[in-house]
């Protein structure tokens, strides 16, 4: 068990350290000169109007919800796929029922316009 995962953890140490080093090492080398303009957020050279923490389209939220629903469903397909040959035709039937319900939900979401961006 451990033998499989150990290299992963060794590698993970590197993966944690490397970005950190990359972010920190430049600190010693690079200049730091203060100028008020550098504190402004970039809007193509024009002074920024208002903050960026405003409202945004509810569509993003909708996509997130749909993703949660369908992604949970697809995740269930992985164990099914791994044991597929042992399950035989029963596996096919189960998947048909499962995906059938998924498709009904999909059709409903489509008909309600949840999948259209505009």
């Amino acid at each position: 068990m451990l033998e499989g995962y150990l290299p992963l953890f060794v590698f993970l140490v590197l993966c944690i350290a490397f970005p950190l080093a990359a972010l920190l090492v430049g600190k010693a080398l690079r200049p730091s000169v203060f100028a008020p303009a550098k504190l402004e957020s970039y809007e193509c050279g024009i002074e920024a109007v208002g903050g960026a923490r405003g409202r945004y389209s509810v569509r993003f939220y909708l996509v997130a919800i749909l993703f949660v629903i369908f992604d949970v469903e697809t995740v269930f397909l992985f164990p099914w796929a791994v044991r597929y040959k042992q399950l035989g035709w029963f596996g096919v039937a189960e998947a048909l029922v499962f995906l059938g319900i998924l498709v009904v939900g999909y059709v409903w979401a489509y008909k309600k316009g949840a999948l259209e961006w505009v």
Partner: protein
Amino acid sequence: MDFILLSILKTAIAAPVLLGTLAYLVWIERKVLAHVQLRMGPSRVGPHGLLQPIADAIKLLTKEDFIPSYVNHVYYWLAPWLALMFAVTAISVIPIGPIVEIFGVKTNMGQADISIGLLLILGLTGMGVYGIALAGWSSNNKYSLLGGLRSSAQMISYELPMALAIASPLLIVNTLNLREIVNGQAGYVFGIIPNWNAVGGLQMFSFLIYLICAFAETNRIPFDLPEAENELVSGYNTEYSSMKFAAFFMAEYANIITACSVATTLFLGGWHPIIPNELGGQFIPTLICFFFAGVLFYHALNPARPSDRLSMGVIGAIILGLGLMFQVPVVKDLAQPLFWFASKAGFLIFVFIWVRGTVPRFRYDQLMRFAWLVLFPAALLNLLLTAFVVAAKSN
């Protein structure tokens, strides 16, 4: 204890290779794009601009890193780190060769060989969205916010067809261990057509869907809306400079490497040669090397510039030696799988760059429509079809 040493050793080998690949991918991309557009590309720093990545690294390291006021400092720092960390970690479970025996030590080629490798990759690449979403939100810039949002929505939307496209070859190989997935694709249909999932396994639609989703997941053209330079001034990383910007850049390339490696593993038979070894598959790497060496020698004999006489000759000789190495008994076991894996993954990476050079960008609503109304049903249908075929075959 040996095992820990071995792991550290492997990491020590993999880290510089990976870093080098990441750095030189930028050079390759710029060169290929330039030639697609009939330009020269980087050519000033070193011969053929080969030292360009190093120059870039020095430039990024010494650039001033200014942080606008009103950013959320914690997440602003966290975002590039997370993005790069997840992107690099995912590479660790990819097998680049079978289990080999070198000097009496048996080991797998690749870092970790775990039973749920594929799930781990899916999970880690899925986590990548955090880096981008956090970067977009914490920057307190409208472009960044929009870029981050677009990117998150796009990445999660394309994750669905991708997961479905991955599930269908799993029906055939029935395992989540990446090495066993590759082993399941060994052999040849009728003794000549490779039994890879995308070829002999008839999973070309899954492969296509996966590849399209991989483009979207890595925010590449034609799905690079989050970075759309001409409307969002590079989106989520607008407010990032110096190494933090470089971290996002590297993360993107690391993600491309991961996506192409997974595609190779799942659909293109990993390290298995395209022609059976008995029919001469094992000589292909050597022949290819000889071909390139020949081309280089030709240029050395008919130099366009005086310096070419030396440089072309030396590089040609190196490649000639490399070609011969593929036939040395001990090295062969290691080098041949590596060659096949690298060439397949490399070709896919080339496709990524090629597409960037030729295809225009989608509009955002088209992008989302394409994911939800075309790719998702197609992937679902493909999965069902595969399920039926596999069930009919095995029962």
